[in-house]
């Protein structure tokens, strides 16, 4: 535990150190040092502007992530359990996953305007496909002998779904959630840069236009920190719900 903490700190020091050096060289006049960026972040925290920005950004982000997680896992289960739905839905998500989203945004804006709906859509398009596809393939790959075991001990279909298929699929479902949610964070910022500048996207756009690069990087840094914290929280939830998951698997 302590060892892993030390390694994590070491890795952070290496990355931030490299950032600081690159800023001091400087690599580009538009690339601030780590310390300058942190000073800008402190200033934004103290004057409260970062909180106002997040109040705006978190709306489409949380809404989109919540929709993607629930609808994504639900659809994934459905697709995984029925081959008919696999043929019906799976291509849609494969296409959505591969589509160049930035190019599609103008269409979304024409259809749904420049408000919250479009932004939620962007988050969902980014986050949902990987959640759906991971869930579906995890469900399909439930070990047959576990399902057979359930049936031989008189499990109902519901028992098999809740007590065998979902727990067995949970590591891959959670892997999909992690990937999907990080993509959702990217989608939220992308929507604020491409649709209307609000929240954190506004800080990024505005500081770039007035050449306040430390503030711009501070905003980008803060969203990465938030994503990392969120994913760590998700890992905690997984460890709490499925204790056996992080302890390896029966291999033979």
């Amino acid at each position, binding site marked *: 535990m302590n060892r892993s903490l030390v390694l994590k700190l070491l890795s952070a020091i290496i990355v931030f150190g490299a950032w600081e050096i690159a800023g001091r060289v400087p690599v580009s006049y538009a690339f601030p040092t780590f310390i300058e960026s942190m000073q800008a972040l402190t200033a934004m925290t103290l004057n409260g502007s970062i909180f106002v920005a997040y109040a705006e950004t978190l709306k489409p982000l949380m809404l989109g992530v919540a929709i993607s997680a629930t609808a994504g896992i639900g659809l994934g289960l459905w697709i995984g359990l029925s081959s008919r739905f696999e043929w019906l839905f799976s291509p849609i998500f494969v296409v959505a996953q591969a589509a160049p989203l930035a190019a599609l945004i103008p269409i979304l804006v024409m259809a749904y305007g420049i408000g919250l709906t479009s932004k939620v859509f962007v988050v969902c398009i980014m986050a949902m496909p990987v959640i759906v596809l991971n869930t579906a393939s995890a469900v399909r790959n439930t070990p047959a002998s576990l399902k*057979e075991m359930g049936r031989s*001990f008189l499990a109902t279909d519901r028992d098999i779904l809740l*007590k065998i298929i979902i727990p067995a699929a949970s590591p891959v479902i959670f892997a999909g959630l992690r990937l999907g949610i990080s993509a959702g964070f990217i989608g939220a910022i992308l929507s604020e840069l491409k649709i209307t500048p609000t929240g954190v996207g506004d800080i990024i756009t505005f500081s770039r236009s007035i050449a306040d690069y430390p503030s711009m990087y501070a905003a980008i840094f803060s969203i990465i920190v938030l994503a990392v914290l969120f994913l760590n929280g998700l890992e905690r939830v997984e460890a709490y719900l499925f*204790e056996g998951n992080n302890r390896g698997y029966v291999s*033979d």
Partner: protein
Amino acid sequence: MDMSQIKDTLGDAQAVDIDSAVSVRNVSKNYGEVEALRDLSLEFPRGQLTSLLGPSGCGKTTLLKIIAGLLDATSGEIEIDGKKITGPGDDRAFVFQDFALLPWANVMRNVSFGLELRGVAKSEREDIAQKYISNVGLTGFEKAFPHELSGGMRQRVGLARALSVDAQVLLLDEPFSAVDEQNRRKFQEDLLELVRNENKTFIFVTHSIEEAVYVSDQIAILLPRPSRVSEVIRPKEFRSTGVENIRRSKEYLDIVDQIWSSLRNYVE
């Protein structure tokens, strides 16, 4: 092969068959064009262990899964205590070749899982599970997860799970094939004791001739493509001797030889 000897053993089997717990009547199983079992009939005497032995691909696991109700027979029927089965039931419990343990659940939850599915209250099922965990010698490992156990211990969990639902018929699908040799021998001795002490009917699938002869009251030899029972052998003398003398008994060695000579033509 001495034909009169086969007739002898068959005759014996019929004669002793007074009370059968499980009857397989004219069961056939086709997978599309492939005939796995053809018109197979077999009686399983109550309170005894019957082995299904044969070369790989002879359909012994298929037959066991049909008895378990996990597979449907194409034709024919299975009766348990005179009642025709239509699917899995609480009169049968299954021990799996690959253990089929829930990797996310500890030993206690795995052992009590069968009872959990039957809706037994938590405290009650854990009491029952505790008893069988200690019966199979896993006391102290209740909180351990399957990946923390050795192969032999994992199968003990599988065995405890099957025992804890107190089914009268125990179906074992090559239960010791993924277990190392020394553990396997210990398991075989424990199994003999189990057959003696628990008043249950055991159906045991194995590909090991020695194992089948060592543990069985009755050995059904299955021959492949399509599968049918070619002979039924009932060891007589060494069953009453102690476990340490079985492998030295002349009858044991004779039966092992006899089975090998009838199976050797079917081994590729």
